[in-house]
């Protein structure tokens, strides 16, 4: 009988690596068609946009608006004002943390 915790550690790690390696192993020729190139360049945009939304607006599979929303709102403002990247991140953190402590 394998310990479930060890099974989880090894199984998760092995599958995570296989998934990562798979993407790097697709033959170049499959990806060289202009249409596929276009789609391939759009996929990370879709995934990372979705990631931002899920990280900012959800908790435990529920939609929720909390201090994170204000933090990300300030980040948007900083981006519009062309603030340097670290300023964008720090202003979001400061806003969210301030609201967290106020509550």
């Amino acid at each position, binding site marked *: 009988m394998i310990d479930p915790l060890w099974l989880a550690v090894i199984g998760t790690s092995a599958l*995570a690596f296989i*998934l990562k390696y798979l*993407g*790097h*192993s697709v033959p170049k020729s499959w990806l060289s068609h202009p249409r596929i190139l276009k789609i391939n360049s759009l996929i990370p*945009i879709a995934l990372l946009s979705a990631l931002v939304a899920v990280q900012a607006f959800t908790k435990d599979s529920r939609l929720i608006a909390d201090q994170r929303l204000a933090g990300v709102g300030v*980040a948007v403002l900083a981006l519009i004002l062309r603030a340097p*990247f670290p300023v964008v991140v720090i202003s979001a953190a400061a806003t969210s*943390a301030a609201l967290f402590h106020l509550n």
Partner: protein
Amino acid sequence: MNRATAAQSLSVSLTVGAYGIAFGAASVAAGFSVWQSCLLSLLTFTGASQFAVVGVLGAGGSAISGIATATLLGVRNTLYGLRMAPVLNVKGLRRIFAAQLTIDESTGVALSQEKTGLREMRQGFWLTGIGVFIFWNIFTLAGALGAQAMGDPAAWGLDAAVPAAFLGLLWPRLINKTDRLLAVAACALALAMTPYFVPGVPIISTAVLAVFFGLRARVWK
């Protein structure tokens, strides 16, 4: 070395790395040993999957369901790999390292340099991948050993800093109308699906939108 890329990589590595404390603490609280928690960060090295597996087992779920949930969250790394492989163009041992470092953060920084050039994309990928790897693992160990003085990541605003960082990486890449529309559509679809699907599915599903927009977009060159 491009200074803006270096600043991005460092900011992302520190912000996301600091979350490792929360992971280390959550993992030990779920019943994993310090050693097992560190192995998860070293070998799995994809945050969402790691939080998922310790969450499932901590809540009394089976190893298989923990692995399944974590794996679903890891599928997006395959899609990142498809994008990064032609940029990095590496073989053998280097490809193994590149694969292990293919995560949201390294892909995000590379993506934000797309306008600048291939060289900057590569630099962004490696710098961020290695940076996150170092900080994520150090902070996991700290969290697992009981550095809970830090407390809730929300108290430090980390829960907003992480999405803000990804947004900051994405921002310069939203060049034309197609990109912006796709970004908004992906946010909407993922949020609409979140209450009804298991974690991981809402985000990967947005790849379908990328295919749809890609088929309709004008193709240059």
